[in-house]
């Protein structure tokens, strides 16, 4: 699972509608993976980015070759330079989580990740 998935997933257990994003990582093993750099894609995706979450994710300990430092203030779409875009690209598309857990900060549901595939299924008492 590339980190972009983490950025667009939220806890969806029944009644869990606030403080359900971002899911909190634990026991993560990750690897660096390849992805083609596409400025067009990143610019299109930019409005969906929660900047604070991205900054926090970029500082996760499991990221190989150290954390990625992004500007504290979210740059305007027009002001994005290639360097920042490449950093966003690296965090969202080139970090591949193989195993670990994601837990909901609100209800505590744990979503396990195995062989790179997060299990987002809900238990029967959690579905609407």
């Amino acid at each position, binding site marked *: *699972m*590339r980190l*972009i*998935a983490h*950025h*667009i*997933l*939220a*806890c*969806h257990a029944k009644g869990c509608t606030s403080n359900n*994003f971002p899911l909190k990582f634990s026991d993560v093993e990750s690897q660096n*993976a*390849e*992805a*083609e750099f*596409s*400025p*067009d*894609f990143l610019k*299109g*995706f930019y409005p*969906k980015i929660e900047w604070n979450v991205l900054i926090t994710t970029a500082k996760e300990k499991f990221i190989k070759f150290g954390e990625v430092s992004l500007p504290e203030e979210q740059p305007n779409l027009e002001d994005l330079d290639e360097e920042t875009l490449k950093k966003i690209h690296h965090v969202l*598309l080139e970090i591949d989580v193989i195993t670990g857990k994601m837990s909901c900060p609100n209800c505590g549901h*744990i*979503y*396990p990740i195995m*062989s*790179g*595939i*997060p*299990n*987002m*299924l*809900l*238990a*029967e*008492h*959690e*579905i*609407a």
Partner: protein
Amino acid sequence: MVAEVEDEEHARILAKRCVLIKSVLEFFSSGASYEALHLTNRNKEHLWAPFQKNTTWKFSVTGYNQTIPKYRQRDVVEGFSYMALKGPVDLANPEQEFCCFEEYSSKGKEALRPKYDGDGNFICVYFGRLIAKGQARNLIQKYDVKKRAYYGNTSMDAEMSLLMANQTLSANGKLIYDPFVGTGSMLYTVAEFGAYVIGSDIDGRQMRGKGKEPGVLSSAGQYKVASRILSLLTFDVTNNPWRCGGLFDAIITDPPYGVRAGAKRLGRKPGVPSRDSVAAMRDPDTYIPPTHPYELSMLALDLVILSRYLLKDGGRLVFFLPTVNDEYKEVDIPVVEGMELVANSLENFGAWGRRLITMVKKESITREAPDLRPRECSERYLDHYVPAHRDFREKYFAGFNRNPDVP
């Protein structure tokens, strides 16, 4: 097919991308007979005169539904002697290739006729200059399911996966999602054309397979598109964890319709009490959430509603809808405000068929995540309409009331 394009370059692009194109020609003339063809072609001298001198060339004569014997090909080529092509003939590597394409009617359902059957129902002949051979056709071999590292009994055949991928307008920098990904057939072809892809399924076993690496990723590796597969996830689309809508440029899927694989959704059948304590349900290592069947017409409608939420404005939904041919009506295609039908093409299997539906999202308003809880199907179709593909599985196994002995 005769079509107008603005630029020769556009024609080349089509030849690169369209799976069904064998070759693209510059159209010179056509006729119901060779005499008629030559009559027009003589008047189109400005089109072919530039190639009369200093150009190596060859002629080819082919037919649809017909093999044209060598001696007839020679006669046809000689018929064009008035074009006075003075350059040398080069059969291996000509600078220009001129093509005659004869069209024959198919006799009923027989697609191919034996060679010795002589000239059949000749309809007309087209003549032109080759611009580009279809290059996407080779992809059908490349994506042949039999040669794939990982596949299953629900894998979509290569040609159809490629046709579907083209319907999504896949391209570099796009993000495309398959909500019933299964063994990933459509992810590979969509990624082939440049898009990033994400897939999900209620049953993770299909995506994983038995190997150490998930099966879908090993096939993606074989096709050198693994870098475009951003995520595979396990969840039920009716209880999906997407944080917001407007995420995807396209959604492509072959939903399970109950013949080889039945659709499932989370939850117990109404009236069946739970056997597990809440504590047991909290243990993700041992707990397997119960699922129950997901009826096809419901699924189709939910898919369109969900796509409207998850697609960007202008994004496309491409999916297969199986239909009972005798009962099919146009209104069977789910009608959802904001989703417009672009194409509806039938692949006919006799009593039933599957329709490749392409829709485009045409609205810029931001909607709330849709409520896809189980409900009576007719509630959500216009005027309590019951579409013909409702309970498709039952109809399929009953032989559609036509030949009850053959399933």
